[in-house]
């Protein structure tokens, strides 16, 4: 206490304490300031430091900045941050500045007929141009496709509720094809849909290209690899299955259709690999039934969340209180984190950053860094701000630090995981929020038990 006493009094006196800071940035040359140390009052907060940078850069209009000290966001005053992190105020402090994230602006609101259980961004939006394309799935089994705020198509994807919907990237030659959509539901099946983009813009209804058949209970989670050629599903039968997906699966389906095209009627009667598509009652077309390519064995209870961390690495969460990282090539668990509560959702940082965020039957969002060896420090950080269970977590498609969470308390929160308090809170829904997804880099979509799909514009400013 004695050691802290003079510092405390100094904090009360305020202006007298000065910290010499050296500001740097990874932004372009237009935003660089001289790296020479500047003495700034220690009681300055983010706003004060932002003013200094704006003053140095003579920016007009002013731009807000956020500040990072040793990789952590400054959320308190400079002096209190140093105290909390046990950083000496004597040495020159290297402070990085990044553009601050502005509060999200709510944009669209689409009422649905039933609870919105899953939402997936299918490209578009942001810098890539074009209206954002997104798919929303409901508890009545209907998937709706939205482009630019208009509902382009709606079709019954599953008998019973749809539990998961993800977009699958494709390198398809035809420009109109766009991404594929993988949906999974309570009927224990997952379906791959083609022609999503065209349907969203008012074209023909999408077709089920393949039926992924292997689960014996509700499929709770699905995720597609970044290259789109592999996907994984997990469900209440506690199995985590790997499937061919994307272009590979489409090619296989076409090949099978070509081979057995003559025997179509016969095959339909036999009920072997070919079935009549009846899901949406649309034109009957051949549907390829796909069997799983592999199984990742290890979970003993419901696999509730799947996320691809890297092309060859998969993160999965389960109700048996564990979060696992899998090496897809060898089908072995490379790392396991044992939590003390059921985990409901998981999201891995893009670009192989290694962080895994997960939420479960608790109010806090947990961030697991698998690179921390045991005994070297805290492997799991806790970010508590929600007042209900976290039902979904979505990592920003490009930023390694930003994530969005949806919670049963009706809020969607935007996090910079370098700080333990959220950046912004969207009181988006009046009931439980069940899903959240990024549509492109700057749109956030969420759906919930109030039967509404909402989108918000987020400018990360990078």
């Amino acid at each position, binding site marked *: 206490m004695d050691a802290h006493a003079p510092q405390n009094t100094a904090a009360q006196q305020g202006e007298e304490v000065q910290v010499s800071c050296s500001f740097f940035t990874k932004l372009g040359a237009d935003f660089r300031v001289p790296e020479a140390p500047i003495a700034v009052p220690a009681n300055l907060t983010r706003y004060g430091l932002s003013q200094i940078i704006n003053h140095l850069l003579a920016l007009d209009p002013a731009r807000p900045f956020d500040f990072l000290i040793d990789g952590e966001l400054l959320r308190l005053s400079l002096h209190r941050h140093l105290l909390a992190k046990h950083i000496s105020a004597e040495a020159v402090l290297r402070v990085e500045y990044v553009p601050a994230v502005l509060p999200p602006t709510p944009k669209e609101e689409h009422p649905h007929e039933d609870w919105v259980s899953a939402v997936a961004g299918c490209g578009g939006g942001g810098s890539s141009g074009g209206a954002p394309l997104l798919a929303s799935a409901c*508890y009545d089994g209907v998937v709706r496709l939205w482009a630019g705020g208009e509902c382009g198509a709606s079709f019954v994807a599953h008998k019973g509720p749809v539990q998961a919907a993800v977009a699958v990237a494709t390198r398809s030659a035809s420009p109109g094809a766009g991404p594929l959509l993988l949906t999974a539901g309570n009927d224990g099946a997952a379906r791959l849909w083609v022609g999503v983009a065209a349907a969203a813009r008012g074209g023909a209804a999408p077709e089920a290209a393949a039926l992924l058949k292997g689960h*014996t*209970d509700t499929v709770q989670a699905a995720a597609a690899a970044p290259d789109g050629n592999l996907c994984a599903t997990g469900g209440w039968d506690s199995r985590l299955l790997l499937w061919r997906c994307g272009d590979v699966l489409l090619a296989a389906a076409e090949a099978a259709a070509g081979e057995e095209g003559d025997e179509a009627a016969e095959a339909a009667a036999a009920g072997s690999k070919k079935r009549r598509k009846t899901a949406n009652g649309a034109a009957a077309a051949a549907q390829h039934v796909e069997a799983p390519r592999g199984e990742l064995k290890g979970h003993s209870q419901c696999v509730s969340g799947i996320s691809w961390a890297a092309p060859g690495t998969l993160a999965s969460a389960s*109700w048996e209180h564990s979060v696992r990282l899998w090496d897809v090539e060898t089908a072995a668990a490379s790392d396991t984190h044992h939590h*003390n509560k*059921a985990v*409901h959702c998981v999201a891995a940082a893009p670009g192989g950053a290694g962080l895994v965020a997960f939420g479960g039957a608790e109010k806090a969002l947990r961030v697991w860094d698998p690179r921390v060896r045991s005994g070297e420090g805290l492997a799991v950080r806790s970010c508590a701000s929600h007042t209900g269970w976290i039902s979904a977590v979505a990592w920003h498609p490009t930023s390694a630090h930003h994530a969005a969470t949806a919670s049963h308390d009706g809020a969607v929160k935007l996090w910079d995981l370098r700080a333990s308090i959220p950046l912004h809170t969207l009181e988006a829904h009046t009931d439980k929020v069940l899903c959240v997804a990024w549509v492109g880099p700057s749109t956030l979509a969420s759906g919930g038990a109030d039967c509404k799909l909402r989108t918000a514009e987020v400018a990360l400013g990078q």
Partner: protein
Amino acid sequence: EESDSDEAGEGDEEEAGARQGGAEAAAADGGGSGGEEDPDPASDSSEDERPNRNTIGDVPLEWYKDEEHVGYDAEGNKLARRPRRDRLDKLIARNDSSKELRTVYDEYNDEEIVLSKEEMRMIQRIRAGQFPHVEVDPFEPEVDWFTRDVEVMPLSGAPEPKRRFVPSKWEEKKVVKLVRALRKGWIKREEAPEKPEAYLIWEDDGKTLDKTATGLTYIPAPKLKLPGHEESYNPPKEYLPSEEEKNAAQLAEEVEERPQFVPTAYDCLRRVPAYASFIKERFERCLDLYLCPRTRRKRLIIEDPEVLVPKLPKPQDLQPFPALLSVRYTGHTKPVRSVCPDPTGQWLLSGSDDGTVRLWEVRTGRCMRVWQLEEPVSCVAWCPSPQLQLLAAASGKRLFLLPTGTGHEEQEAATKQALAACTASSSAGGGGIEEGQLVSWQRWQGGGEEGGAVVLHKFAIKHVTWHTRGDYFATTAPAGNTQAVLVHQLSKGVSQNPFRKNRGRVVRVLFHPAKPFFFVATQQNVRVYNLAKQALAKKLVAGSGVITSMAVHPSGDHLIVGSEDKRLCWFDLDLSSKPYRSLRYHNYAVRGAAFHRTYPLFASSSDDATVHVFHGMVYADLMTNPLIVPVKILRGHEMVDYQGVLDVAFHPTQPWAFTAGADAAICLFVNP
């Protein structure tokens, strides 16, 4: 008056014989005027004298001297004073009538009494010193009625018994015995304890006798405080109050604040005045002794109070257990009677008084499906078979077997097949129970296209439970008496009545999770039947209170029983037929009890709208008793019509608890 009576006496003597008849007539007159019979002349009793007319008692008559009346008669009416005659009148009257000579005036009653001749004679005899009555003979000859002489012939002819003059043989024997015992030292004579020469005479003052003669414990009266120096008549100076203290005492507003006794100094004992509050103090002391109940308080000498606290682990060391209310499942409109999660933990079933069975998704709290049954649903149970997706719901006299529609295609097909098989023999819907049949298995088309089956009972079903394998299930209909418990087989569609008679009203039945045992809870006790041997294996006595709920430990060796007298009893079946632990934490009747399938947890729900969660660790070691620690009280429901939480169930894999409340809500409590 004195002269009057003298003259009357003289006059009487003169006319004694001549006026006999007239005097008697006058005496009869006087008696008639008094309203009383003449007193018996032989009696000496003053009671027999003529009763007084006046009732004023023994008061000086001069008090009435100036009044119009002389007193009051027995009815309280005034006795008017008669006009007094003057001397002239009296003289004329004496000349007119010889009776006047015998007339005396009774001042008390204000009457003139004419004495008869007989009375006159008695007066004369008394004056002469003789007996008043002529008949009395003081010198009668004495008659000796009894004699003290010994008669020649005795009154009784019995001879003198021998025992009068022979010494008693039995007494002699007894004496011989005593003498022998004394000589041989069998009887020890008590020698008087030697008293020490000097002893404390007040020694046993502080001691209390264990028992008094009445058998009650003797408790000595509390002692008074002994007087000290300040109560001396001439106390030392330091005890005497100074002037300031005296003034302060007098100025004290409250009477209580004033000192009771102020030391005062007197130069000699002779000057000491009487102690003013002596009577008061004695009286208060008597009141203290009389009114204060005195009990003997045995002081416990506890060196370390921590020793008394049972060694239980702290609740936070016994994590995980449900504690936080996380999800509320709302949709029912009347009290929810029963909840049951499915074996995987994805779904939750609930049955309510509003006649609906609802299927909920556990994670999101969404109601996935509603079955509308006509009557209030008293119990729901999920079939534990992994091949089937089937639920059983008890509603009135009907037991519904419904496909849940949550499973895979194969499971749904198997369920459909099983339901079709069990109702194959029955007629399609409708109809009652045939003669001689226990129940009727029928098809039900009410719940959508999948249909279902109905087992129609004769009595209202209150509880249904599945065997672990999911083929057999048992229903309880407490009103059924001999048909209270029925065991049904799903695959064959048959029902049987395992007990010809039930001792008491059956409230719950349960299957043992592993062995062929069957628990039957009546209102008073629990019977454990061995189904293989078809015999009673054990009878558990819960004590008082009507049993309301029962749950069996997953190992099958322990049983918890909740009853209406607020208790939850834990039975160790290997240990005893008495409860191993009786947990009385609730304020109202216990309604539900449940064990967790994997975690060492159990819970009880009660009408006080709380659920108590306990850590109940059972050890494989037979020597170690189960560890029972209360860990959490779950509150989230409200009391409605004196009903609180009607059922509790644990999630099959997570340390979560579902509670069904009378406030129509279902709550999920999760571990913090």
